[in-house]
C-alpha cells in the first residue's frame, strides 16, 4: 500500500512538472525575449537562451510617452471601474440578499443571466448606440477612453453582485436582526456589519473587477482608435505591430509589463483570487 502510494506520488510529480512546463512556457519565453536585442532575436542561435541580456527594451518602453499613456489609461480606467463596480454591486447585493422587494428574485436571476451574456454579442449595438447618441447630443463617445467607464461595468458588476449575494447570504440572519433591534438603519447594518464580515468576498470581487477591466480587449479595440485614447492591450497590439514589421523584443516586453499588475495582485492575494473564481459556480 505505501509502496503504491510512493509510486503514485512520483508519477504525480512527474506529470505536474510536465504540465507546469506547458503552462509556464509562454510567460517564460516572454521574459527571455524581452531581455534580447533585435540583433539577437533575428540571429540563428538557440531562441531559448539569452546570450547578451539587456534591459534596453524595458528602458525604451518605460521612457516612451505613448506606452506610458496606454499604461496610464489602463490604470485610470481600471481603478475607476473597480470603484464603480463596488459602489453599484455591494448595495445591490445587500438589497437582493436581505431586503426583498417586488421582483427582487427575478432581478437576482437576471443579474446572473447578464453575466452569461458575452461582450461579443453587445459591442456592435453599443457602437451604433454611441454613434446615435453623438448625433442627438453632439457629445462624442466613440474614440474617447472614458466611454470604457460605461461599458466595462457591464462585465464586472453582474459577477461581483453575484459573488456578494453569495457571501451576504452566508451571514446569519440573527446578526442583522440584532443590529436592527439596536437601532441601526439599513445603511448602518450594511457598512458596520455586512461589509466587515463579508470582507473576503469584497476583496475577491475587487480583484475580479480589476483583472477583467485590465484585460478587456474587444471593447477598447472597437471603441477607441487614436493613440492617446488607447488602453494597454490594444495599444501594444496596434502601435508596436507596424504593418508586417514586428519588433518582438518590445512586444514581449510590453506584454510582460501588461501582464504584471494582475500577476502581482495574484501573487499576493492568491487565496482571495481563487475564492472569487470558485465562488461564481459553487455559491448561490
Amino acid at each position, binding site marked *: 500500500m505505501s509502496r503504491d502510494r510512493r509510486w503514485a*506520488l512520483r*508519477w*504525480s510529480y512527474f506529470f*505536474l512538472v510536465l*504540465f*507546469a512546463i506547458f*503552462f509556464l*512556457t*509562454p*510567460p517564460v*519565453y516572454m521574459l527571455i525575449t524581452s531581455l534580447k536585442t533585435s540583433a539577437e532575436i533575428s540571429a540563428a542561435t538557440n*531562441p531559448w537562451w539569452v546570450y547578451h541580456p539587456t534591459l534596453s527594451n524595458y528602458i525604451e518602453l518605460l521612457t516612451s510617452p505613448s506606452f506610458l499613456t496606454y499604461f496610464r489609461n489602463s490604470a485610470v480606467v481600471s481603478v475607476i471601474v473597480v470603484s464603480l463596480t463596488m459602489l453599484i454591486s455591494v448595495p*445591490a447585493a445587500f*438589497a437582493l440578499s436581505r*431586503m*426583498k422587494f*417586488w421582483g*427582487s428574485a427575478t*432581478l437576482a*436571476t437576471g443579474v*446572473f*443571466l447578464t453575466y*452569461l*451574456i*458575452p461582450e*461579443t*454579442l*453587445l*459591442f*456592435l*449595438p*453599443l457602437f*451604433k*448606440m454611441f454613434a446615435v447618441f453623438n448625433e442627438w447630443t453632439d457629445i462624442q463617445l466613440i474614440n474617447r477612453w472614458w466611454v470604457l467607464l460605461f461599458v466595462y*461595468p*457591464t462585465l464586472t458588476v453582474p459577477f461581483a453582485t453575484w459573488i456578494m449575494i453569495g457571501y451576504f447570504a452566508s451571514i446569519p440572519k440573527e446578526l442583522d436582526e440584532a443590529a436592527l433591534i*439596536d*437601532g441601526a438603519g*439599513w445603511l448602518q447594518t450594511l457598512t458596520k456589519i455586512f461589509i466587515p464580515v463579508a470582507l473576503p468576498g469584497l476583496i475577491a470581487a475587487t480583484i475580479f473587477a480589476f483583472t477583467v477591466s485590465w*484585460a478587456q*480587449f*474587444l471593447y477598447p479595440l*472597437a471603441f477607441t482608435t487614436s493613440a492617446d485614447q488607447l488602453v494597454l*492591450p*490594444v495599444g501594444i*497590439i496596434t502601435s508596436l505591430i507596424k504593418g508586417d514589421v*514586428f519588433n*518582438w523584443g518590445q512586444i514581449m516586453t510590453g*506584454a510582460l509589463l*501588461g*501582464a504584471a499588475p*494582475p500577476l502581482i495582485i*495574484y501573487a499576493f492575494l*492568491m487565496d482571495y483570487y*481563487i475564492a472569487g*473564481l*470558485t465562488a461564481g*459556480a*459553487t455559491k*448561490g
Partner: protein
Amino acid sequence: MVDAVIQRSEVAVPARRRTGLRRTMQRKSTVAFLMALPLILLIGLFVVYPALYSLHLATLNKSMERFVGLDNFFFLFKRETFWMVVQQSCIFAITAVIFKAIIGFIVAHFVHNVPAKGQRKWRGMLLVPWVIPPAMSTLAWLWLFDPSYSAFNWVLAVFGVGPVPWTGDANWARLSVILVNVWIGAPFFMIMYLAALKSVPEQLYEAAAIDGANWWQRIWFVTLPMMRNIIAITALFSLIVTFANFDIVRILTAGGPIDRTHVFATWAFWLGIQGGDIPLGASVSLFMVPILAVAAIFILRDISKRGNEA
C-alpha cells in the same frame, strides 16, 4: 435605543404629507429598490437595451436607413464563409472545452495527490495562464508560432522534424487556436475540480478500497459521480466563454488564412467594425444566441436545483 425612539416621535410631528413621503422612503422595499437601482439602470441601458437593439439592427440595410426584414440572414445563408464560420465556431468551442475539461481533471488529480503542504505552490504555478490577460499571452504564443523564428520549430528541428506552419496552414492554424484556448482555460477547470475533489468525503474512498476497487474504479464510481454537478457547470460556463471568444483568434490568426479560423465573434467584428456593415455583423453575432441560451438554461436549472437543496 431610547434616544432613537424619542427622535422618531419628534420627527413624526410635522405635516402629514411629509411623513407619508418619509414613511415610504423608510419602507424596507423602497430602500431596497433604491439600492438596487444603479444595477437595474446599468443592466437595462447597457445590456438589455443593446441586446434588443441588435435584433432591430439585424433587420436594416448596410447604411441603416432601410428596413430589409430577414434579408441579412438570407444573405448570410447563401455565403459559404458563413457556414464555414458556423462549423469552425462549433469545432473550436467543443474541442477546446473537452480538452480543457480533460486536462483540468488530470492536473487537479495530480495536485490533489501531492502532500497538502506543496499543493499551494503547484496550484499557484499552474493558474498563471488564467491570470495573464489573454491578449498578452496570445501575443507570446504568436511569437512562439512565428513563421521564421518559431521557438517550437527550433526545438522540433533538433529532433529532425520539419518546420510546422503553426498559423500558416488552415488545419494547423485551427489546431493552434484551440491549443492556445486550452492553455488559457485548463487552469480554470483545474481550480474548480480541485475544489470539488476536496469536498468528496474520504470515507467513500476507504469504503471503495475495502471493496477492492482499483484506482480507475475509484475515479469512475466515486470521484466522477460526486463531481458530476461541478463538472457540468464548469463545462457549460466554459462553453459560453469559449464560443463567444474573440481575443485569441483575433490576435493569433485574425481569421486567416483565408477566413479558415474565423469564429462568430471575430467575423462579426470584421464585418461590423472593419467592414462598416453593422447590421450584417449584428446578424452574425446573433447566431451565438441559441447555443448560449441552451447553456444558460442548463446552468440556471442546476443552480436553482442546488438552491433548493440547501
